[in-house]
């Protein structure tokens, strides 16, 4: 029966090409616009580390003085050097890493390459196992390297390609800011989106090319990038950030079970009380421990414009659907005579209804295919935009499937009313007027 309905649908659609084209075009435009913006939204609000994100947490403490204190305000979004080091050395989590962004002058050994600046991350040894970074060659550095301020470095695959032609460079020397570093590892392609571990670098920044121990970077006074908030008389003196009343470091922990999460939160509260007793903290205890995805929400990483665009596109799809309902109604009612004959020959209302819905489904499918082409075009346009997330706008399998579901689903929905109206036709009346 379905095959027959399909045949009828195609015949009917062919009969009035103009009207069919109008319907398909409206659906395609609506679907194309919606899928473009929804894909961007989907990509941008994705999980940066699928599988690992549920065990990653971001602690917050409030080390500020009483100036400007308001109860229950969010604590600073970064930590001071002292607190970061205390928490790091306490080792109360399964993994923990302290970090900041930076930039280092790379001095290639090859004569053909000019020196250049690379984005860097100064961090501690757990960074690699905690974030499950893939290694192409070698491995990360050890906690002993952190303590010993070792001159070791992990570089990205792209930097390895640039400097060593993609060969295994572990054990080789990399000169940065007139200092020789030994390469211990080369990362494979790794670009978590969003750039969750430090959103100051841009929410969708690509990951860094150079990773080296935080203590080493501080000892060599390497350039720091990112945001810094100070209170009291602190601020500005980059050479003495260790004692400054400033927050400028990010601290992440991995906690493998809910019990450990509760324990860690208690530990943070305890730590704050202790620091208050010591006189370092002044404010009442105010600690937070957010999960990775929650942290992204708090930082509002998905741009407001992208959400607005998605709403706009859905509004546009709604108009296109109303338009389709109208056109389909016109189409079905115009065929009142034909439907009357089918009813008179014994087709039940249900069968006529099914036949008309198949026809809407075909329109939806055609609209979906054209809409998909438009979405590809739309995403191509998005990728040409200058924003840092632009390059990420690609359609994945989920969104491809969603396109067709949305197209056929919404068109069937749009077909319901016209099909129901067309079923109400009394066969006798139609036959009589013929």
């Amino acid at each position, binding site marked *: 029966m379905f095959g027959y309905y399909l045949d009828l649908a195609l015949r009917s659609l062919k009969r009035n090409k103009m009207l069919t084209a109008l319907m398909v075009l409206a659906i395609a435009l609506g679907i194309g616009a919606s899928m473009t913006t929804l894909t961007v939204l989907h990509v941008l609000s994705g999980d940066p580390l699928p599988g690992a994100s549920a065990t990653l947490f971001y602690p917050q403490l409030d080390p500020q003085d009483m100036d400007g204190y308001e109860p229950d305000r969010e604590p600073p979004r970064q930590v001071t050097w002292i607190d970061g080091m205390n928490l790091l050395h306490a080792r109360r989590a399964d993994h923990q890493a302290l970090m900041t962004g930076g930039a280092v*002058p790379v001095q290639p050994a090859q004569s053909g390459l000019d020196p250049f600046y690379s984005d860097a991350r100064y961090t501690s040894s757990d960074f690699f196992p905690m974030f499950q970074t893939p290694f192409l060659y070698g491995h990360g550095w050890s906690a002993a390297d952190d303590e010993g301020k070792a001159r070791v470095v992990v570089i990205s695959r792209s930097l390895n390609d640039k400097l060593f032609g993609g060969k295994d460079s572990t054990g080789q020397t990399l000169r940065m800011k007139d200092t020789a570093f030994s390469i211990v590892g080369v990362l494979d392609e790794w670009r978590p989106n969003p750039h969750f571990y430090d959103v100051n670098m841009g929410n969708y920044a690509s990951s860094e090319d150079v990773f080296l121990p935080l203590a080493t970077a501080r000892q060599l006074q390497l350039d720091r990038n990112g945001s810094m908030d100070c209170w009291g008389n602190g601020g500005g003196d980059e050479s003495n950030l260790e004692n400054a009343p400033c927050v400028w470091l990010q601290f992440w922990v991995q906690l493998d079970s809910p019990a450990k999460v509760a324990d860690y939160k208690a530990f943070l509260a305890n730590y704050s009380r202790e620091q208050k007793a010591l006189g370092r903290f002044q404010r009442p205890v105010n600690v937070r421990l957010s999960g990775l995805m929650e942290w992204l929400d708090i930082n509002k990483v998905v741009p407001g414009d992208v959400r607005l665009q998605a709403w706009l596109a859905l509004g546009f799809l709604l108009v296109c659907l109303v*338009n389709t309902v109208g056109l389909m109604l016109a189409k079905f009612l115009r065929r009142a005579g034909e439907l009357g004959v089918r009813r008179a020959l014994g087709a039940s209302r249900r069968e006529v209804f099914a036949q008309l819905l198949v026809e809407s489904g075909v329109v939806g499918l055609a609209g979906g295919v054209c809409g998909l082409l438009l979405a590809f075009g739309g995403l191509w346009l998005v990728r040409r935009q200058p924003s840092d997330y632009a390059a990420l706008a690609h359609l994945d399998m989920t969104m491809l499937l969603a396109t067709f579901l949305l197209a056929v689903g919404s068109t069937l929905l749009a077909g319901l009313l016209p099909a129901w109206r067309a079923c109400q036709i009394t066969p006798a009346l139609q036959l009589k007027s013929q």
Partner: protein
Amino acid sequence: MDILPILSTLRRHKITAFLVILEIALTCAIVCNAVFIISQRLDRMAMPSGVDEHRLLHAMLANIGATSDGKARTQEDLAALRQIPGVAEVASVNQVPFGGSSWNTGIKLDPKQHTSTLNATTYYGENLVRTLGAQLVAGRDLLPDEYMDFDDVVRAAAAKDNRMTPHVVVITQKLAERLWPGQSALGKQIYLSDDPVNVVGVVKELVRPSIWDDATASYSMVLPIRVSQGEYLLRTASPQDRERVLAAALDKLKQINPHRVVLKKHIFDDMRHNYFQDDRAMAGLLAGVCVALLVVTALGIVGLGSFWVAQRRKQIGVRRALGATRRNILHYFQTENFLLATIGIALGMLLAYGINLLLMAHYELPRLPASYFPVGALLLWLIGQLAVLGPALRAAAVPPVVATRSV
């Protein structure tokens, strides 16, 4: 006119009429809000900077090896840059308008205040006001002997030594008006730490390097602090030769000290262009969707109009046979469309207002000005009339003889 018969016809085609009304209402609501957002973005992109944009150049360099004696090297750079033909003014600065990364601090009007009155950006750099070409509207510029070195200021601040911290500041007019409404800011004091800083000059406008809230976009101060972080601003004598001057300046800097790399180099016009690129993209996208919406709505009206005309061929024939002119038939369909559009527009206005309330709550958008309503109405009436013209003309072309034919 034909209004009564039209209404009675529409009552028999409730669903179709309702669909047309709904489509027009939705389109009207979305287009009104979209156009409003576009105009907001265009306003933002035209935000005044208060600086001599067409003649400004920006360069940022970083040393490759460990640095020593940055202050002397900066003075050397500045002296060399001044020698380049076509350069009018030079400054070594800590940040530039529309540059992105910024230095900010809280301002208090009383040192005992619990929280800061507001947050403003701090520009440092000798000769900065003149190089930027900011217009002084009251008081004076900072004097050379008032300038202090950044390192000394930081050290003094940490040691709570108020002799080596700045005591004078130049602020923008907007900041002055916000701090002391209706009064002259000259001679007034602000507190960045425990010590007062005197306002000695007011500039007409000076935009921040990065703007979170458009209302505070020109909350800027210039403090008498010398910096040497390798970031330079140049003002050329004329806009024509700025590309040449920028290239010459970079050559010169590399020549003085080859052991460094250029991190940034811009003509200021490009900095403005880059700063507002997201707004430009958003405005373009919204404009595209508006056009698409209007086209889809127009096509919908054409489709339904044609259907109606086809359905009523016989009635039209009867009316023609009974003496109605072509013009009467044409007007009938045009009036019908006008009625539907009017109802749709009225509903659309309400909906537009509702959407605007939602946007105000979630996207910090201001209230939709009332002037958008008549313009939106006019636009949709026009689109409706244009779209229905084709089907209406076809209806008018129906010959009276149709009435006599049995189908």
